[in-house]
């Protein structure tokens, strides 16, 4: 199965710029479906980005983060070919992880 996570990590000398896109409905729990029933909340709570075994970003998300979330950040260090591990956990306990290579 294709991963829910897509990552583009680019090392440019001193820093590595990371852009990630995660496929997730991010249902807020405030929206009704076509039959008028509330769609229960289903959203990612945490996303961890780890480089060389070290946490480089921890994202805590509420239901207000858009569907198929996008995030962009940068950290010092990181070289071409280094692994970057991305792991998310949602409010239903579902999780996915991906090891991307810094390019």
């Amino acid at each position, binding site marked *: 199965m294709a991963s829910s996570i897509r990552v583009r990590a680019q090392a440019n000398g001193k820093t590595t710029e990371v852009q990630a896109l995660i496929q997730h409905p991010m*249902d807020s729990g405030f929206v009704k479906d076509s039959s008028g029933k509330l769609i229960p909340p289903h959203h990612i709570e945490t996303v961890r980005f780890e480089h060389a075994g070290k946490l480089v970003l921890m994202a805590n998300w509420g239901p207000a983060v858009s*569907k198929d979330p996008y995030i962009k*950040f940068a950290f010092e260090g990181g070289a071409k070919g280094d692994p970057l591990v991305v792991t998310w956990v949602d409010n239903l306990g579902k999780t996915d992880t991906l090891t991307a290579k810094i390019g």
Partner: protein
Amino acid sequence: MHPRADHHPPAIHTRRAATRLLALLGVAGFVGTARAAAPGWPEEAFKQTSEADAIKALYGKSAATSDKITLEVPEIAENGAVVPVSVSSSLADVTAISILVPGNPLTLAASYTLPAGTLPSIGCRLKMAKTSNVIALVEAGGKLYSTSKEVKVTLGGCGG
């Protein structure tokens, strides 16, 4: 038809039944909320419906306005389901960045923990239910700073 006494069963039975019922309810309640939040997720802060409560639950202190935070948001968001927000700061020693949308049902939208070495600049996309201020909170050197900007929402986006 029934003797009057039948309408008043011995108290002990009632009590036992009540205890059992409570136990059942307790178990159900527990199961209903038992699912632990993801490790490290600030559940309390994400439940808050006001700016002050969310900030308090998150950091336990209040924020001072700072011009050293750059909050980039569109002036007008035609689609509230996808509002690009980016926060960066020239403050030293930034350890956390959070984004609040007081116009949403729940105020806190996203909160990021930045370990040493991570640059104080985050971009993401948020839902906005209606026109509201967007508040960027930056924790730097143990202190809390904020800045805010209004985003006019033409089409509410809690629909995601």
